[in-house]
């Protein structure tokens, strides 16, 4: 029974990690159609942010707290730079953004290698996040609980921004009808930049969180990017709701398969499930409701 609850938690936790990794993507990919393969490297940048901050701030807990907004900023600024320099001239060629950002990812990884060295760096966890938290009936790792809370907070904050603020209304306006938004005076250029900034910033936060669980090194991003994209695809286009459901769904599935078989088979099985899922519900993926077909 305890193992079962532990496993349920493991699945939720994995889901929250996937959610953090995919949330920014669902904004940049789902809402803007840009396939940003450098998203993983923005996560890496967030993780290295914690490492750098820990070099300045001795207390690991404080460093982590400081790193969350800072990681958002680092990821966001990298994203902004990418948008301004490259992506904005490619909105009509979404597939090509995939290859361009793959190149950017390669460069960023090598920059990390040249700046921080090829081996992983040591990021210390704050004492209040190491060890477990007793929930009465079972004990769960504090770090994972923290990440779960962080992902929920990130989704909440994003939802508030998208639905309650003028910026959010602008983003949704531009996504739904670019031309109309332009004619009513919304600057689509500014909105694009902001959307990309926020989406990439979320990657930075994900990177900060991942230092609690895994290695901080140049290849951190590559370990997550394929899974994160699968989540967005399964979740459906432009749907934060869909991303949340897909992340936790895939997380629970991976954990369940892994428990009953092996981690390798579980990864393969999750892929098969996503393909089968697309057979049943391509609607979540595909929607054509435009007047012209241009």
């Amino acid at each position, binding site marked *: 029974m305890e193992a079962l609850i532990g496993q349920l938690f493991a699945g939720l936790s994995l889901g929250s990690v996937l959610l953090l990794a995919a949330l920014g993507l669902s904004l940049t990919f789902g809402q803007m159609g840009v396939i940003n393969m450098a998203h993983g490297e923005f996560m890496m940048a967030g993780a290295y942010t914690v490492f750098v901050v820990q070099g300045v701030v001795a207390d690991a807990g404080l460093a982590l707290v400081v790193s969350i907004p800072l990681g958002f900023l680092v990821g966001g600024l990298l994203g902004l730079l990418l948008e301004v320099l490259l992506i904005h001239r490619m909105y009509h060629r979404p597939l090509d953004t995939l290859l361009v950002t793959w190149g950017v990812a390669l460069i960023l990884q090598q920059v990390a290698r040249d700046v921080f060295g090829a081996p992983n760096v040591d990021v210390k966890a704050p004492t209040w996040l190491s060890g477990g938290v007793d929930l009465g009936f079972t004990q769960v790792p504090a770090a994972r609980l923290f990440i779960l809370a962080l992902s929920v907070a990130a989704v909440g904050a994003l939802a508030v921004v998208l639905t309650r603020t003028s910026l959010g209304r602008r983003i949704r306006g531009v996504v739904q009808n670019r031309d109309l938004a332009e004619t009513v005076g919304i600057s689509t250029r500014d909105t694009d930049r902001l959307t990309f900034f926020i989406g990439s910033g979320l990657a930075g936060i994900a990177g900060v969180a991942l230092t609690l669980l895994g290695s901080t090194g140049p290849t951190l991003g590559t370990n997550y990017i394929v899974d994160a994209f699968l989540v967005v695809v399964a979740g459906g286009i432009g749907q934060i709701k869909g991303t949340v459901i897909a992340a936790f769904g895939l997380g629970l599935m991976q954990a369940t398969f892994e428990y009953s078989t092996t981690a390798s088979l579980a990864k393969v099985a999750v892929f098969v499930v996503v393909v089968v899922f697309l057979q049943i519900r391509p609607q979540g993926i595909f929607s054509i409701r435009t007047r*012209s*077909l*241009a």
Partner: protein
Amino acid sequence: MKSDYLELTDVRVTFDGFVAVDGVTMTVLQGDLRFLIGPNGAGKTTLVDAITGLVPATGSATFGRTELLNRKVHRIARLGVGRTFQTASVFEELTVLQNLDIAAGSGRGPLTMLRKRSSTPPEVEAALEVIGLTDLRDRQAGVLAHGQKQWLEIGMLLVQDSKVLLLDEPVAGMSAEERQQTGELLQRVGENCTVVVVEHDMDFMRSFATSVTVLHAGRVLSEGTVAQVQADPKVQEVYLGRAEVEA
């Protein structure tokens, strides 16, 4: 030969609870040049989408007693129902000839497909004549003028051997001269086909329509000749009145 007619019965299209087409019933006979008009959001394009399989619909739409609804898009096309789009959607990287040749070829077998085109098929030659693009046959479609692209689209419908032609705002953005030519083209084509034109341009309609159906809020508001429809007080109220004012 009036047996091949397009008959819609209680066609209904719903998007997430919003009823875009609300029980449209109409019949278009062969040789008819039917104009479908109505204010924005009346459901004109959606109705065309429903007939061509782009959006799911309930009710019935038959052509020559064959049910069209809820078939795949390409199957409906093969039944002889063709359409154009508001924004011309020709294959810009291909030549005029290649565009027409593709349109003419949905019935070709694999061996024909895998061979090079050795000569221009007669129906393509004929269509080039009809749409007046013979001299531009080797020009890339992407560099054609707007009006020429629309004509190419119509040409593609012709070689496709469509019996029902659904045209979505074919003269939008055209010069007066181009409109005139397009109208005459439609009249020529309409002799052997069932043609439905979705249009906003009232002058164009008055010049070329043989009959008109007015849609409003997803329903048929009025139907008849141009004169009959123009005289209908309901139509004047929701649509034409306003158009008169604008004009």
